Structure formats: C-alpha cells, structure tokens
C-alpha cells in the first residue's frame, strides 16, 4: 500500500519536471534580441509609417488651401446674395405700390354697421388744414 502511494507521487513529480523543462526550452532564452530587430518586415512598416506621415501633412496643406479659397468665395457669394435681397425688396416695394395703385387689392373699409363705438373728437384752436363742406 505504502509503495503504491509513493509510486504515484513519483510519477506526478516526474510529469511536473517534464513540463517545466518543456516550457523552459520553448521560451528559447538563449536567442538574442537583436535578431528580431533585423527583421525586414519591421523596416518596411517603419518606412510606410514615415511615408504616410508625409502624405498626411501634404493633404492637410491642400485642405487648408482649399478652405481658404472656399471662405473667400463664400464671402463674395454672401455679398452678392445681400445685394440681390436688397434689389428684391426694392422691387417688391415698387410692385406693391403699383399693385395698390391699380386696384382693388386695398383692404375694404371696416364698416362695422354700428355707431356705438364712435371715435372721440376734440375742438382745437389751431387753424384747419382743410374745411369740410356739404357733400
């Protein structure tokens, strides 16, 4: 019985030593660090990053230049719109006056049909602008 238990402990310890040894060998602690840096893919990636940074700066310059041109054109367009609005308002006032002149678009007199709300009147001492006569 005692020999059987001892054999099991010995087997477990052997398995533990085996796996620890395997992990140590798989980690390759003897490989040098400089060999990884020498990988050409790293160099390609670094070069590409550098190129992209230059392209981003160039694109930013183009965008800035186009933004400035747009702002200048926008200001000119806004001034043109303001001038057009002023011309439209003047034309509208003239058209309204002309429309009123010809016609029947003037509001109809507000004839209430009642004399209850007659306006108040006062006698003043200054000379009249006009004198009413019998109609």
């Amino acid at each position, binding site marked *: 019985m005692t020999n059987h238990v001892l054999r099991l402990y010995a087997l477990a310890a052997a398995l533990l030593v085996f796996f620890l040894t395997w992990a140590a060998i798989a980690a390759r602690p003897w490989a040098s660090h400089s060999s990884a840096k020498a990988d050409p893919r790293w160099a390609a990636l670094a070069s590409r990053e550098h190129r992209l940074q230059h392209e981003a700066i160039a694109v930013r310059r183009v965008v800035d230049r186009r933004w400035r041109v747009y702002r200048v054109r926008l200001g000119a367009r806004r001034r043109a719109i303001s001038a057009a609005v002023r011309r439209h308002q003047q034309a509208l*006032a*003239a058209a*309204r*006056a*002309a429309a*009123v*002149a*010809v*016609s*029947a678009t*003037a*509001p*109809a*007199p*507000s*004839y*209430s*049909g009642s*004399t*209850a*709300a*007659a*306006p*108040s*009147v*006062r*006698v*003043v*001492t*200054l*000379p*009249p*602008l*006009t*004198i*009413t*006569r*019998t*109609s």
Partner: protein
Amino acid sequence: MILRRSFRAMGTDVQLFLATEPDPLSNALLDGAEREFERLEALLSRFRPDSELSSLNENGRIHASPDLLEVVELALDARTRTSGRFDPTVYDALVAAGYDRTFEEVTQDGRSAALPAGPCGGTVTLDRSAGMIELEPGVHLDLGGIGKGYAVDRAAAILAEAGPALVDAGGDIAAIGRPDALGWRVGVETGEGTITLGLEDCALATSGRDRRRWRRDGEERHHVIDPVTGRPAETDLLRVTVVCETAVEAEVLAKALLIAGEQAATAEAEALGVASVLVTDDGRTTLAGGIV
C-alpha cells in the same frame, strides 16, 4: 412734411394729404388713391351710361363687381339701421326733383322732369354668393353719397401704407393716424364761423341743404331726399357734420340726422355717442355726442 394732391372726381374737389417724406412709394400711393377714385366713379356713377350702376338701373339686374356688391349691401344695411331715413332707392325722386344730370349741368331754374315724386323703398335683392343684384321693376338706385364715402375709405386705406394720411372729398373725410399731437385739423362751418376738430383714425361727413340746391317750377329744391315723401327733405337743420369710424358710416348718419330734424338728431347723436355738429336754419350751432 405733408404731401398734397388735388384733383376732381365724383363731382367734387378731392384733396389727399400724406404726412411723409416724398419718395417713389408715397408718390405711387398718391397716384393709386387718385386712380381708385376714378375706378370707383366709373363703377358707381349714375351719370355715366357705361357704369355698372347705370347698367343695373337700366336692366334691373346685374352680375355685379365686388365693389358694387359691397356698396349696395352697405346701403341696404344703412336703410335698415336708419329706419329708412337713408335709402339708396331715391334715384327717381332725385330725377323728379331736377337732379337728373351732374350738378355742374343742372340748370339753376327750369321745369321739373315728368317723373312724379313718391315714397321710395322698393325691393332690392342681393345674392352675394352668386354676385347678383336684382331690382324690383321701377326701382333705381343712387349711390352718390355712400359711393363717395366708400371711395374715401378705400383711398385712405391705400395711403395708410405710407403713414398718416387725410382724404378730403368735399363733405367726406377720412383721417389715418395723425401728423402731430393735435391730429388732422379739419374745419367745420358753423352758424357763427368755423370750429376746428382734431381727427385721428376716424372719418367725418357733412350733409346739408346749403349746397347742391336749385329751383324747379318756381320752388327751391335740394339733393337731400326724404325717402318717406320722395321729395327734398323738409327739416330745420341746414347742415349736419358727423364723426364715425368710416366715411361710409358718417355719410349715412349725417344724412339720417339731417332728415330727422334738430331735436331728434340731437337726441339720437347723444344717445349713440356720435360726435356731431348740427347747424340750424337760423344759424344756431349744437355740438352733440361728446365733442370736447
């Protein structure tokens, strides 16, 4: 600054006043107000054979313009409200009295027309939805006074676009706003002279027997017909001036008060609270209706 325009329309001198600076808009509005008088005269004059009113009087019915419908409706409403003292069916009575052409052409003395004078008040049917006006056979309309009041109100509405304005068409005046603190100053003739009223956003009309008078068959006639008798009104009032909200309303009430006579007119003006200046035949002047 007060701009001023004078012209002749509807058988009277018309003056337009506009309290504003001269500019294209104010000039256009003055032109528009003047043309509005001409347009409405062309529609509403009984002396123009081609007017809508003449066509209605000749044919007894018409598919009327909105303006003619409006004025006839106002006149019929006024006939009801004044219990017949204002009546648009006085046409034949006016012709019978000798007022059968424009006043400038009415001879100062002569023979009367063949038409007999009689009570007015025939049936006038107005269908606003169909735009139709139909007169009872033998009935004819005169819209002289109320038409002029309507034109004054319309012209005032046009000028109001530019600012304070006054439209003066003989006895009918409309005031829009005021040019200064005292309002539009309008003189009213009284028995003793002239008093000046300050007007603001209101209208004034004067009706009387002192003008538009002539002689027929040896007796004096005037243009204010009493619809009850169909003859020139016999009243102790010479002239009545009334202030109301619109020139149409003032024109109607001035005529109704003139026909009513001094006592009834004074009582009615006081009861209604309508500012009125009543001048009697013997030159007395009564201020009624709250003139202060």
